[in-house]
């Protein structure tokens, strides 16, 4: 150990300095797939709204209004697809453990595909893709509940 580190430890001990954690890996053990589900549902709704939005009239004001609505919907879709992917990655890398592979052998494949669907839904306006994403996230949420139930047994 470096002298400076030893000195710091000594000072902290003498002055009763308490650690103040700014960690990424303090295991709080609190996880919830709900945020991912909500985000996936939002993406689906935005895609549906975008595809069903009636074409604007010929006037400049209507054209502008239509563009504005589309941009707002696309922004919401983009944001929630990002949130969904981020939440999935937290569940994948932090919540699920190697022992869960016994229960769910397709775990990695499913997460990988679900994360890719989040990206696909950013790029495209495709209702079938959005539905696939919702289904994939629901499947993961179901596994999460099963894993939680197995923990309590």
């Amino acid at each position, binding site marked *: 150990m470096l002298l400076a580190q030893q000195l*710091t430890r000594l000072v*902290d001990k003498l*002055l*009763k*300095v*308490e*650690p*103040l*954690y*700014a*960690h*990424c*890996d*303090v295991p*709080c*053990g*609190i*996880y919830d797939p709900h*945020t991912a589900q909500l985000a996936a549902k939002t993406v689906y709704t935005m895609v549906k709204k975008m595809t069903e939005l009636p074409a604007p009239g010929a006037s400049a004001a209507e054209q502008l209004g239509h563009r504005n609505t589309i941009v707002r919907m696309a922004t919401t879709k983009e944001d929630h697809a990002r949130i969904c992917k981020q939440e999935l990655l*937290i569940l994948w890398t932090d919540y699920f453990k190697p022992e869960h592979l016994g229960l769910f052998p397709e775990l990695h494949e499913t997460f990988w595909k679900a994360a890719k669907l989040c990206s696909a839904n950013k790029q495209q306006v495709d209702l079938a893709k959005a539905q696939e994403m919702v289904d994939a996230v629901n499947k993961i949420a179901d596994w999460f509940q099963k894993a939680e139930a197995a923990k309590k047994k």
Partner: protein
Amino acid sequence: MCRYRLMRVQGASMSPTLHDGDLVLVDTQAYRVTTPQVGELIAARPAALAGKAVVKRVTAVSEAGWMLRGDNPSESLDSRGFGPVTREQLLGAVCCRLWPLKRPAVSC
């Protein structure tokens, strides 16, 4: 009990504001009368962390409590993980950095 408490930052979730190893002063009486506002740096003991104290920034205030985030989201465990922090879990305001001296102090 002394109003000000010396605490040593551990981890990188508050980078670039606070670094691993920084020594900070926490004012434990800061929120006796007022409450933490969005943007402030606070120390708290979230129930989920079994007594451990964390330093985070307040990002939102709701009826359920204060939502906290690290300044470095990719390196941070925060209210996304442990939920809103209640009044009883608040430890105090991080009012200044005492060490290292070479970097500017955190503003109150």
